[in-house]
C-alpha cells in the first residue's frame, strides 16, 4: 500500500471546506479541515501533512500569517494559498513567503488535480531520494561482496582487522556463499595484496595429485614426473594460499598438512630440501568440521590449527535483504560484461527471487541473473526470464493445510491474470461468485504493482 497522503484545508467558509474535502477524499486523500488559523495550528502536530490548502482571507490570522507558522512548525508541508479575489500584490507576497502555488477560486478541476498530483509526486521523489541515500550508507561493500545484513557487515569489519595479521583463517559456509570471494577480500585488504593469491581446490584432485599440486615434486618423483615442478604453496610465495574444500582431504594429507602448518616448511614430493612457507593460509569448507571430527573423518588437531580465526558466512536464505542488492550488483556487472543495458528486475520477478530458498546461495543467484540477462528482451528482467528450479511455494508445500494451498493457488492465479476475475475464474474452473467468495474468505488483496 502506498502511504496515505494527508491534506489540511483551512477556510472560514464551511461549504468550501466541505466540498473541497469531499472532492479530495474521492481521490483517496486523507483530508481534515479547520475553520481558522488557530485551529489549523492545533492540528499540525497530529499528522505528517503533505499539503495545506489555506484561504487567504480569514478573520483573525490570515493565510499568509498561517503559512509562516506552518513553515516554522512543519517545513516539509507544502502550502497552497487559495483566494477568491486575486491581486498581483497578494500573489507576489504569497509566493515570496514560500507558497508553492497561489490559486484563484474557482479552479479548473483538471488543473487542481494536476497541481496536487505534482506536489505528491515531488514529495514522493524527495522522500525516496532520502531513503535511498540512507540505504546506500547502510549497504556495505567489501571488494566484490555486497551486503547490508548485520552479520555480514560484522564479518566485513572482522576481515579488515584480520587482514593485517598473518593468522590462519578458516572460512566456513554453504557452497555458493562466497568463501573464495571473502578470502580474496582478506588478501586484498592485507599488506600481501600485490603478491599472488593462489587457490587450490582440494576436492577436485586425487590424494597423490593433490599432494604434488600442493607441495610440487622433483623430477622422477613418480611416473610421469619428467621434470621438477613447484607446488601451489611455493607459487603463493609471500601472498595468500587459499585451500578450498579443506574438509574433503584424506586423513594422510591432513597429517602432512598439519606438519607443514606447524613447522612452516615443507618438502617437494620426492625431494629432500626443506622449503620455508612465507604465504598466509586461508582454508575454507562447506562441511561441518566438528561433525567430521566426531565421525573420525577430520583430525581434531588440524581443526584447531586451522581454526585460529573463524568466519562463518550465513546462507542467502537467512539474509534475504541482500537479494535485491546482489541482483543489482550482478545486473551492473553483467551489463558491463555483456554490453547490455538492463535496468533491473520487475517487482513480480523480484518477489519470485525473494521467495526462492537459494540452496546454491549467491552463486546460484548470480547464475540465474546471468541467464536472465542473456534471454531478456527488454530493459527489465521479467518473471519468464528467470529459470528457478521450482515455482515458489511448491517446494514449501509440506506442512501446509489444504486451505492454505488453495489460498496460495488462488492468489497466484489472480496475480498471473492481473486480477481479472473472469479470466481467473475460468482458469480455476469455478464461477465468478465462488471466486469472489474465496477472495473474501482468504482476505486476498490486489498487490500494488510498481510502474516499471
Amino acid at each position, binding site marked *: 500500500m502506498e502511504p496515505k497522503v494527508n491534506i489540511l484545508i483551512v477556510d472560514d467558509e464551511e461549504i468550501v471546506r466541505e*466540498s473541497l474535502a469531499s472532492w479530495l477524499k474521492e481521490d483517496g486523500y486523507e483530508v481534515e479541515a479547520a475553520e481558522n488559523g488557530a485551529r489549523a495550528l492545533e492540528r499540525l502536530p497530529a499528522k505528517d501533512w503533505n499539503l495545506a490548502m489555506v484561504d487567504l482571507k480569514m478573520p483573525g490570522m490570515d493565510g499568509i500569517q498561517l503559512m509562516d507558522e506552518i513553515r516554522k512548525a512543519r517545513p516539509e508541508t507544502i502550502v497552497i494559498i487559495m483566494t477568491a479575489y486575486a491581486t498581483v500584490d497578494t500573489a507576489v507576497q504569497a509566493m515570496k513567503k514560500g507558497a508553492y502555488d497561489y490559486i484563484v477560486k*474557482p479552479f*479548473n*478541476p483538471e488543473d487542481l*488535480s494536476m497541481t496536487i498530483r505534482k506536489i505528491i509526486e515531488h514529495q514522493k521523489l524527495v522522500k525516496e531520494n532520502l531513503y535511498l541515500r540512507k540505504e546506500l550508507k547502510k549497504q556495505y561493500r567489501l571488494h566484490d561482496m555486497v551486503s547490508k545484513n548485520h552479520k555480514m557487515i560484522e564479518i566485513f569489519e572482522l576481515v579488515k582487522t584480520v587482514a593485517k595479521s598473518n593468522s590462519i583463517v578458516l572460512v566456513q559456509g554453504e557452497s555458493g556463499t562466497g568463501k573464495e570471494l571473502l578470502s580474496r577480500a582478506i588478501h586484498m585488504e592485507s599488506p600481501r595484496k600485490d603478491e599472488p593469491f593462489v587457490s587450490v581446490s582440494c576436492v577436485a584432485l586425487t590424494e597423490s595429485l593433490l599432494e604434488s599440486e600442493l607441495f610440487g615434486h622433483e623430477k622422477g618423483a613418480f611416473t610421469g614426473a619428467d621434470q621438477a615442478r613447484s607446488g601451489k604453496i611455493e607459487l603463493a610465495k609471500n601472498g595468500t594460499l587459499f585451500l578450498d574444500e579443506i574438509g574433503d582431504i584424506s586423513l594422510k594429507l591432513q597429517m602432512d598438512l598439519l606438519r607443514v602448518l606447524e613447522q612452516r616448511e615443507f618438502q617437494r614430493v620426492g625431494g629432500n630440501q626443506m622449503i620455508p612457507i612465507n604465504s598466509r593460509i586461508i582454508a575454507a569448507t562447506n562441511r561441518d568440521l566438528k561433525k567430521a571430527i566426531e565421525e573420525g573423518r577430520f583430525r581434531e588437531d588440524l581443526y584447531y590449527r586451522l581454526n585460529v580465526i573463524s568466519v562463518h558466512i550465513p546462507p542467502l536464505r537467512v539474509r534475504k535483504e541482500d537479494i535485491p542488492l546482489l541482483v543489482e550488483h550482478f545486473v551492473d556487472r553483467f551489463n558491463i560484461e555483456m554490453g547490455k543495458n538492463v535496468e533491473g528486475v520487475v517487482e513480480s520477478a523480484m518477489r519470485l527471487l525473494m521467495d526462492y530458498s537459494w540452496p546454491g546461495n549467491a552463486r546460484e543467484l548470480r547464475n540465474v541473473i546471468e541467464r536472465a540477462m542473456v534471454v531478456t528482451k527488454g530493459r527489465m528482467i521479467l518473471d519468464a526470464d528467470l529459470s528457478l528450479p521450482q515455482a515458489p511455494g511448491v517446494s514449501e508445500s509440506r506442512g501446509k493445510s489444504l486451505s492454505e494451498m488453495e489460498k496460495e493457488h488462488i492468489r497466484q492465479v489472480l496475480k498471473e491474470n492481473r486480477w481479472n476475475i473472469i479470466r481467473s475464474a475460468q482458469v480455476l474452473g469455478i464461477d465468478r461468485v465462488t471466486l469472489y467468495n474465496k477472495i473474501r474468505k482468504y482476505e486476498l488483496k*490486489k498487490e500494488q504493482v510498481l510502474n516499471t
Partner: protein
Amino acid sequence: MIPDAMLTMLQDHLRDYLSLPVRTMRAMPVPEGSYERNRNQYNSTRILREILTETPADAIKIVGVIDKDLCIPILTFVFGEAQLGGVASIVSIARLRQEFHGLFPDDGILFDRLVKEALHELGHNFGLIHCHDRECIMYLSNTVRDVDRKRSTYCGSCDSALYLKSEPWRA
C-alpha cells in the same frame, strides 16, 4: 428536466449491473440557495445536503440526476459529487450533453456518459476512491473526453471491491 425514458433506462441499467433493486423517485425541486448567481451554476454540495433530507428510510444509496450545471466553490464545475462511503450522490447531465460542447445532441452518447458517471458516484458511495486505470469507471474524469475514454464497467479490482462492499444488500 431529465426525460423519463432516460431515467427508466438508467434505473434498469443500474439494477442489472449492480444486481440490486433500483427505483426512481418523484423529481425534487432544485433547492433554493444552491444557485450561485455570479457563476450561473448550482452548488452541488448544497444540493447533496438537500437530497440527504429526502432520502427514504429503506434506501441504502440515493443518486440525484440533475440537468443544471454544477460547481463547488473551489472548482469551476463538477460532473457530480458523492459522499465517500456515504448515502447520497448527484450527477449533472449538463456538461455530458453534446450540445454543451457545440455539437449536435445525441441521446445515445448522453446516456452512455450518464451511466458511467452514475456508476462512478455510486462507487464513491460504496467507498471506492479514484482508480489509476484510465478505462475504469472509477478513474477521475475532468473532461467528457475522460468520460468517453472510460469503459462502462469497473476494472477487476474496483469490481471486486464494489462487489464485496455491496454484498450485504444483495442477498
